[in-house]
């Protein structure tokens, strides 16, 4: 395993005039869980598809498992697993038929297929359901089966494109346990998601927005580096009104809706709680709770994206 599992340099993808991936560069270490975060349409799938050889890049270069994605596509394919954003096993083949087929296509011998089949059934938690068709399985199991099928040939690098989309929280947790287990066994995992809580499971994360890279680092680094002002969580019934009022005040740096609460960051030289009470109190809004919180990645990202958009406007 080379130390660097994936290395992208100025990787770019244009669809006509539209730039879906805009000169992004990053590197992923072997055995790392690398999270790739961004909103819908930010270019996550496009990046993965270029790295897997499904799309021709329009500029820049990249290596995966040490092979160039353009000139050594065949070697790349032998060393990667890919789980696409939509479920893509054969719905009319049973669990074992799917496993045997994909194993065969990856060139495994019959004994190897038998061995990996047992492994895959175990990983997916499908003991006793070997003869089911994928469409009869609950979402979480389907997803794990798809992951197992992408890992049959024990690839060095596995690309997972929103693997937990549409899966309930408990199954999501279990799926992430599985990803961690794979990483501990030495597989490099490149995973996209737009669930920010999932990013905390990653060794390192990278945020892209509108095809551009915005930030990269460990979750802790990102939180420390980008959020310098304290964040407070405000609970009130008139949340939209409160947000508008706070936004107008110069002392307030940023506001965002977070579930049913408001997250507010205030310039450091002020007493944050006092400022909030003062602004809202002037309009007869008395928040039922104001509490300083440890900023989450979501706060970081909202902050970063706001900053990027502000810069672009300028």
């Amino acid at each position, binding site marked *: 395993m080379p130390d660097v599992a994936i290395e992208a340099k100025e990787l770019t993808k244009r669809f006509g005039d539209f730039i879906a991936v805009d000169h992004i560069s990053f590197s992923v270490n072997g055995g790392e869980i690398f999270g790739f975060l961004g909103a819908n349409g930010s270019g996550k799938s496009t990046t993965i598809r270029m790295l*897997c*050889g*499904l799309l*021709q890049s329009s500029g820049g270069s990249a290596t995966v498992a040490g092979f160039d994605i353009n000139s050594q596509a*065949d070697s790349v*394919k*032998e060393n*990667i697993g*890919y789980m*696409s954003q*939509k*479920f*893509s*096993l*054969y*719905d*009319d*083949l049973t669990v074992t*038929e799917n496993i*045997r*087929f*994909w194993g*065969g*296509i*990856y*060139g495994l011998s019959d004994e190897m297929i038998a061995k990996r089949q047992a492994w895959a059934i175990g990983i997916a938690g499908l003991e006793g359901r070997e003869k089911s068709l994928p469409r009869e399985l609950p979402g979480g199991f389907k997803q794990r089966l798809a992951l197992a099928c992408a890992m049959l040939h024990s690839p060095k690098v596995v690309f997972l494109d929103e693997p937990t989309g549409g899966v309930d929280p408990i199954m999501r947790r279990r799926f992430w346990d599985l990803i961690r287990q794979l990483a501990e066994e030495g597989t490099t995992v490149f995973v996209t998601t737009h669930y920010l809580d999932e990013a905390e499971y990653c060794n390192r994360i990278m945020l892209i927005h509108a095809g551009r890279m915005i930030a990269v680092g460990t979750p802790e680094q990102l939180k420390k580096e980008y959020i310098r002002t304290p964040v407070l969580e405000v609970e009130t019934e008139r949340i939209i009104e409160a947000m508008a009022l706070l936004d107008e005040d110069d002392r307030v740096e940023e506001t965002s809706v977070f579930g049913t609460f408001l997250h507010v960051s205030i310039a450091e030289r002020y007493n944050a709680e006092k400022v909030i009470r003062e602004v809202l109190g002037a309009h007869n809004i008395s928040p039922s709770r104001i509490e300083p919180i440890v900023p989450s990645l979501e706060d970081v990202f909202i902050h970063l994206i706001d900053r990027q958009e502000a810069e672009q406007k300028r």
Partner: protein
Amino acid sequence: MRTLLHMLRKEFLQLRRDPRIVQLILIGPIAQLLLFGYAINMDVNTVPVVVCDMDHSIESHDLIARFSNSGYFPIVGYVDKLSDVDPYIDRSKASLALIIPENFGRDIKRNASVPLPVIVDGSESNSASVGLNYAGAIIAGYSQNILVQNFSRRGFGGLHPIQVIPEVRVWYNPELKSRNFLVPGILGTLLLQATVLLTALAIVKEKESGTMEQLIVTPIKPYQIIIGKLAPFFIIGAIDIVLAIAGTTIVLGIPVRGSIWLLGGLSLLFIMTTLGLGLFVSTVSQTQQQAMMTTIFFLIMPMNFLSGFIFPIENMPKIIQYVTYLLPLRYFFEIIRDVFLRGVGFDVLWPQALALFIFGVCILTLASLRFRKKLA
């Protein structure tokens, strides 16, 4: 090689599990063939006739007897007045009315031209025209008979052409002729439909469901995907050939005059072209819906209309006639017709075979290149 075997095994597993398959490859063709075969038969067998005999002579009775004895014209009523014919036609009790004018017998003996009005129910144009042809044949036979009688009575002096019918076109048994041509022709349309459509759908389905993408990220080669996808439909096509030939010869009793092996072999050549077309359609379609529309509107319909199956090529405008040289179905129809009806061999049919071969190689190459390009 092992990869290919895995691919093939998967394709057959999927085929076996596809409920449409039995319907499409087994029931469909056979049903179509039999329906077509018997429908043509039925049209002709039942042309009910109403007779309006205003003459009541020996000659008129003779003509009527010829109609009723033919087996194709059940006589559903006799009337004496013209106005009584209308209700029969109006209520579709009769498709054809035979009107024998007064003095029909006398005029015939005098060698005069004899008008013999035949009223046909045009609403069923198909059976009407066949009925008309039949009636024409019977009447022609009748007039010829009289001609012969006159001739034997008076020698050459009696040879005046007697006109008894507005139009006499078909002398042969038209029923046998059209049926013998049409039924084998179905083999062509059948193979075209089954193979092009099924191939295109099977490939596009993988695109739609995302499994194609999943396949592409594996080390499998594009040619292995192509062979894996086409092989099952080649076999299905072959089964259809056997079924259709068996159905035509055994069930419908239409014999193959030429070599069955030649017919089978050239049919396989034809399937090669249709598989190529199916693959090509799959490279220009994103959804199964699109593939279906493209196949039906751009391939099946034009080919059926322009390949000489429904309309004779000789009657088409010159430009269209040139276009038909680009249609594999055209050559295949010629092959079917010639092997089935004329019993000719490869020595005569090699140009058609060559045309199919060239078309097949070209379309398969083109489609494969497009397919590979899409993958890259």
